[in-house]
Each structure stands twice: as C-alpha cells, then as structure tokens.
C-alpha cells in the first residue's frame, strides 16, 4: 500500500514536470537567460555591433551609482508612481461609485461606455494623439487659451510642466482601467449587506464610508500594487511623446536605458541601467509586499 502511494506520488511528479516544461523552457530562453546575460554585458564596454568588447569589471556600475541622469530618471518614475496612485485610484473609485449608486439610469450606461474608450487605444497611439492635441500651435489647450484671449501654450516643451502634463495623459489613459476594476469589485460585495445597511437606516454616503470602503480595501491595495509596479516600468507613452525631454524633464529609467543602448550604442552601460532598474523595481515590489503583508497576509495577489 505504502509503495503504491509512493508510486503514485512519483507518477504525479513526473506528469507535473512534463506539463511544466514548455513554460519553463520559454521563460528560461526569453526571461531568465537574458537577465543573466544583461548582468554579464553590464561589465563590458561594448557598442553592441563590433565583435570586440572590453571587459571593464564594475566600471559601468560605478558610473551608474553616481550618474545624476539615472537618479533623476528614477525620481521621475517615483513622481509618476505617487501621482498615478493619488489621482487614478480615487478618480477610478469615484467614477465606479457614481455608476454603482446611479445604477438603473440609462444615461449612465452611455457615460460608462464613453469613459472606457481611452483604454481601447494603445499607449503609442495615445502618445501621438496627445503630442498633436497638445501641440503649441494648434492643439486643444492652445485653442482654448486663444478662445479666452491667451496665447500659445507649450506644455510639453517646457521643462517645468512637461512631467506633469505627461502624468495627466497617463491618468487619462489608465483611470478607466481602475474604474472598471472597482466596478467589478463592487459586485463582489454581497447585496444583502447593502440591504441590511439600508434597513438599519444608513444613508448612501454612510454606506459608502462605513461599509463599502472597508470591504473594498483589499481591492484598493492590489490596485495600488499594480499601479506601483506599472509606473516603475513605464516606457512607450513617454518615449513617443517626449522621449525623455526636454532635457531630462521626463526621463524615465526605461527611456534612458533605451536611448543609451539603441541610439548611443552604449550597450554595456545600457545593460547596467537595465539591471539597476531591475534591482530597484524588485526591491520596491518586495518592500511594498512586506509592508502590506504585515497587516493582512492573504489580501495580496
């Protein structure tokens, strides 16, 4: 009997290994190996084309640690992260709450559909759309400003406003995502709870603050984590809109890495930036998970 169960366990393990092989094969080729390779390349001075690369040990890393450009990019990433969470989540939640409380009104369905549309567009398309929509000579903002007797408005070309403008575009893109996400979360609150609250004489705002919000907390947390990791990896929209400019005003770790590797052909240093980015993101993600985990273990993921 004992040997039979052992045999079955062996059989299970064998089938499991067989079924897991394809996924691991692909992850190994396209994720694990490239990560190691990037760390290796980061120790060379190499333009990516010529066959001779020079081993320079930790020089790229020493440069990276004191590279103001890189840390500026990281700070921009953090700014995007903080403002994304601070704007998109509350806004998404408000929109979802509005739709939830107004359920039944036909017109709200129209609102919901139209609010969702930005999410259908790719980041690249949004980037281009806003580059033109915010253009200094005939963009939307300039048109409005001229209507009120003002002059041309240059939001993306001004280092003071560029980052903030880009963040607004990011919020425009992703708020609908959090809206839909919170609508789905609302449906997970049992209807009985709402009924019970109403019978006990709760007003809608009381229900929202005292009952719905605490019940939505785990969803808000995981939304925050998604937004956090996403903001640190951000690339395409900003690369298209400003490619990090003017100056370093909207530079991100990813855009800096891309330009350094594929425009300046400093693949060694580009790899070092990519590895630095990888380390910073992993640390941030681990730290956040730890902090949030301390309060409640199974809220996550």
């Amino acid at each position, binding site marked *: 009997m004992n040997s039979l169960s052992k045999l079955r*366990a062996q*059989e*299970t*393990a064998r*089938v*499991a290994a067989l*079924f*897991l092989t*394809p*996924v691991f094969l*692909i*992850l190994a*080729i*396209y*994720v694990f*190996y*490239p*990560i190691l390779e*990037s760390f290796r390349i980061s120790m060379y001075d190499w333009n*990516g084309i010529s066959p001779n690369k020079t081993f320079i040990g930790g020089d790229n890393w020493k440069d990276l640690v004191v590279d103001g450009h890189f840390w500026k990019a990281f700070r921009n990433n953090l700014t995007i992260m903080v403002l994304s969470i601070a704007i998109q989540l509350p*806004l998404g939640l408000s*929109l979802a709450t509005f739709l939830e409380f*107004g359920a039944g009104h036909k017109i709200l369905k129209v*609102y919901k*559909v*139209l*609010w*969702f549309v*930005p999410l*259908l567009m*790719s980041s*690249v398309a949004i980037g281009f*759309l*806003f580059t033109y*929509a915010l253009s200094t000579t*005939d963009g*939307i903002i300039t*048109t409005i400003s001229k209507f009120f007797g003002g002059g041309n408005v240059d939001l993306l070309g001004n280092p003071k406003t560029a980052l903030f403008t880009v963040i607004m575009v990011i919020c*425009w893109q992703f708020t609908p*995502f959090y809206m*839909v996400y919170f609508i*789905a979360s609302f449906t997970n609150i049992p209807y009985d709870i709402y009924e019970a609250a109403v019978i006990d004489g709760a*007003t809608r705002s009381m229900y929202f603050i005292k009952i719905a919000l605490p019940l939505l907390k785990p*969803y808000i947390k*995981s*939304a925050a984590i*998604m937004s956090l990791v996403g903001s640190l*990896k951000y*690339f*395409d929209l900003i690369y*298209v809109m400003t490619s990090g400019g003017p100056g370093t005003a909207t530079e991100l770790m*990813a855009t800096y890495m*891309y330009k350094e*590797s594929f425009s300046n052909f400093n693949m060694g240093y580009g*790899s070092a930036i*990519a*590895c630095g980015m990888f380390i910073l*993101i*992993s640390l941030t993600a681990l730290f956040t998970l730890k902090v949030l985990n301390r309060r409640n273990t199974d809220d996550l*993921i």
Partner: protein
Amino acid sequence: MISYKHEIQKSRICWAIAIILATCYLIISITPFIFMVLNSFKERFEMLTKGVFSFPETFYLDNYKEVVSGGFFRYFLNSAVVLAISLCILLFIVACAAYPLSRFRFRFAAPIFSLIVACMSIPIHITLIPVFKMSQAIGFYDRIWALIGPYVAFAIPISTFILTSFMKSIPKELEEAAEIDGCGKIKTFFKIIFPLSAPGLSTLAIYDGVNMWNEFSFAYTLTQSRENRTLPLAIWDYQGEFTMNTPMIMAVLTLSLLPMIILFIIFQDKLVKGMTAGAVKG
C-alpha cells in the same frame, strides 16, 4: 418628516453636483477623440485655417486613401499573424502549466507558482539587449517571428496566475470519476480539464490579445523594415513620413483604433471583463 424632506433635497443637490463632475470628466475623456476624428477628415490646410474644432467642410477621404495605399494593411496583417500564433502557443502551454499547479499535490507546486508569478514585476527592458542579440544570431531580426517568443514569455506569468485560479474552481469530482474509469492524468487534462477551461481561456485570450496587439517595445527593437512591422509601429512610421501633416496622422490613429472599437461594440462586456482579468484577486 421635515428632516426626511431635507435629506431628499440634500441628496438631489449631491446628485446634481455628481452629474456635473461626471460630465466634466466625460468631456475630458472624449475631447481628444473628437479632435482626432474631426481632423482626420480635413485637408491639411483646412485644419490650420479653420481651427481644430471646426466641423470638416467636406468629408475629405484622401487621408484615409493615402494611408491605406501606403501599406497600412501590411502592418495589420503582421499584427494579426503574430497575435494568432503567439496566442495559440501561449494558451496551450499556460493551460499545461496551470493544470499541475491547480490540480496536483506535489512538493514544489507552491514555490514554482510563486516563481512564475514573481516574474510579473520583471521589466522587459532588462531582456531587451540579449533578446535583440539572440534574434540577430538566429536570423530572426527584422522578421515578425522574432516577436512571438518575447510576447509569449512575458504573458506567461499573469496568464498562469489567472488560469491556475480558474482551474482551481473546476469541481474535483469530475476528475475523480475519470480516474476511477481508468483515465490517466494526461488524458484527464485533454478530455476534461482543457475543455472545461474554455471560459478562462477566452478571458485570457482577450487580456493577452489586447496587450500583444498594442505592444511597442519589442516590436520597435526587433523589427526595422516597414513590411515587417506591427500596427503600433505603423503610427510611428507614418509619423516619420508626415511629421507636419496632422490630419494624416489623425487618420492613421483613427484607423488603428477602429478594430478595437468594432470588437468593443460586438463583445462589450466580455472585452471589459477580459481586459481587467489581470487585476482580479484570485
């Protein structure tokens, strides 16, 4: 009674404010689209002289004609081919991986699952240079085939996560009955679990499909010539060609948004559900 009336009045005012705010957001959210569609029907100089929000005098279709004759469908076709192949591979291997992770009890199930899920936070940029070199080495550089591997690989973590939690919800009894009838584990997968996972797989297809359809970084790095590029890069290439011609770019943008709008109209709820699948707590 008085306080009740007072309450109703208060809630009416609240609603009025809420609707005004909601409408403001609605305007913010659709103005760029109005800008895009209106100007795509204008002639280049009409936009400059008449202003961006004027209604086009005649529906000028030459922008669209020129975009389409400039090989737009080639991008479209490339995107479709890459998407179809990548999705088939992805869905099959992810189903294979989710099966043991959700239905078997073996020692390494939990750590393997965590390892795969942890890959979600890996930025694609750390793999960009090695993958670029790899594609060159095996002759895939500037071919659409180069995109399939990275697309599948970076979709694996979240897809495995979603599908594993889906498969966990399939009742155990079916599997046990099959086992009693002499069905082995492999056969159980193909005959029972895989077919029963169809709803989960279709959600995944939407979620990953949208992401792959819009992917930019790998496509931009691994392909170069126009005939081998995907749809997000069409915008990039046309932009290089018609920098100053805003209506032309708006036509490209409108055209590239069109497939998604059509899908959205047909499968509204399913699409919305699929696109937020990655966010659903397991």
